[in-house]
């Protein structure tokens, strides 16, 4: 508890991470359910050149980098979708191509003006350097994200379970999908400052993947995902403070540890139930 009580930068980092931990994991749950887990990863890399361009033009200005990341992220999401609709490539292949190009492009752009430390911040974040402006941005993103998610909830669920039925009763499927991709980009930009492009998707996906072992309905999964993200943020920050480790990776490592524990003892599908079988029921 001590570092959070004593240091304002730690408190800000904690609040920022808590906001991320509330906004991003629900999106991650849907990404996982729609078999788009790796697409989240690809989109995270796609944001890099946009943020790098912002950095090139305006230095370490949060709004330049976030704005650049948002614009390029949306453009790449749309371009990948268009390419998959009009060429033989499916979305996973076209996004894979984009993200590899984006990563190389982004690193190149950063190295034009910045040095290795800047590059490390881009790739792995610097949650301890969140200022009030960044905090407001993250809180704003979380609020918008939760609101829009509530709005598109029904078409999102239906599109995962029974897309044919959705098409037969509504035309909301397409717009809901686009809005969802927008939310992914938004949350990745939110996480980019704290965790960097390579790890921003970690707070979105790891808690969501973990939740599969603890719940059998979507709302339950989201609740578990948010809780494990919050725990990972708190424990990760504490760990990085006391053990003098970089904070972004520490948070993701704790999230990873929770995931491994869940594979072992999670009520739904945990490996322990294979080893300790229980007697079957009467009926």
């Amino acid at each position: 508890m001590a570092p959070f009580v004593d240091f304002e930068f730690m408190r800000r980092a904690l609040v920022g991470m808590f906001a991320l931990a509330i906004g991003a994991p629900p999106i991650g749950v849907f990404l996982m359910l729609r078999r788009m887990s790796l697409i989240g990863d690809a989109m995270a890399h796609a944001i890099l050149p946009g943020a790098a361009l912002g950095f090139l033009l305006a230095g370490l200005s949060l709004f330049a980098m976030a704005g650049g990341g948002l614009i390029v992220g949306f453009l790449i999401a749309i371009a990948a979708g268009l390419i998959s609709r009009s060429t033989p490539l499916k979305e996973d292949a076209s996004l894979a191509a984009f993200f590899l190009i984006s990563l190389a492009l982004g690193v190149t752009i950063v190295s034009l003006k910045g040095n290795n430390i800047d590059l490390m911040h881009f790739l792995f974040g610097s949650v301890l350097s969140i200022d009030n402006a960044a905090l407001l941005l993250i809180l704003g993103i979380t609020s918008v994200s939760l609101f829009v998610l509530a709005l598109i909830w029904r078409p999102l669920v239906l599109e995962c379970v029974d897309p044919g039925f959705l098409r037969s009763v509504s035309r909301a499927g397409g717009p809901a999908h686009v809005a969802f991709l927008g939310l992914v980009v938004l949350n990745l930009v939110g996480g980019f400052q704290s965790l960097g492009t390579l790890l921003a998707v970690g707070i979105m996906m790891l808690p969501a993947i973990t939740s599969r072992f603890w719940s059998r309905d979507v709302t339950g999964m989201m609740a578990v995902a948010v809780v494990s993200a919050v725990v990972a943020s708190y424990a990760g920050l504490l760990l990085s403070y006391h053990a003098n480790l970089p904070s972004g990776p520490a948070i993701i490592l704790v999230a990873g540890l929770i995931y491994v524990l869940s594979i072992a003892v999670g009520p739904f599908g945990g490996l322990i139930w294979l080893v300790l079988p229980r007697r079957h029921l009467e009926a």
Partner: protein
Amino acid sequence: MPELRFRNLTLGYERHPAVHHLDGTVRNGALIAVVGPNGAGKSTLFKGIVGTLKPLAGSIEREGVAARDIAYLPQVPDIDRSFPINVYDMVAMGLWGARGLFGGIGGKDRYAIEAAIAAVGLTGFEGRTIGTLSGGQMQRMLFARLLVQDARVIVLDEPFTAIDARTSADLLELVRRWHAERRTVLAALHDIDLVRAVFPETLLLAREPVAWGSTREVLTPEALNKARRMCEAFDESAEACVVAAE
């Protein structure tokens, strides 16, 4: 007053017709079986009716029937069984037409959902995730959703294939009930005896319409033989069709 009118309708894929020059009307309250060999165009016709497939030529006129008024059960529903959702919520989806994106579900709606689940014999299954259902239970659940949709026109594509006899009998009762409620029902079926026993009207389709009328007059041995002789494969060397359009 007709519900649906087909005018010189041709539906197909990549310019090859799967339904070729179909004319006719589906009357309000009709109970029609669509019969034909595999590849005869039954599913294609239903996709055209529901609006998923645009005609290659001709038209389908829906007299005062909006997309919302048609409930469709496809042959192989593209349902993700690993998705964490239970039977109650799946059946509740049938309310989309009435409640839309944000409409809340009130007491009357809950009653309708529970009544539908009971009507298909799935009481007690409300909390089960769909991945744990058997084929027959899945079909019952989808019928319950159709009940909740409360649509004027119901289109069923091979609803009883690979379903056990008791489930078929129970679901057939629902079809009879819909007919009694003056809903328009179209069903693609392979079981000729079932069609003779239950359906007063039949469309015998083998890409071209072979016969359409009362079941007794349509399902004659000659007509069935003619349908059986239809060639299933698309003709890759076919020329453009010269039958005059109206």
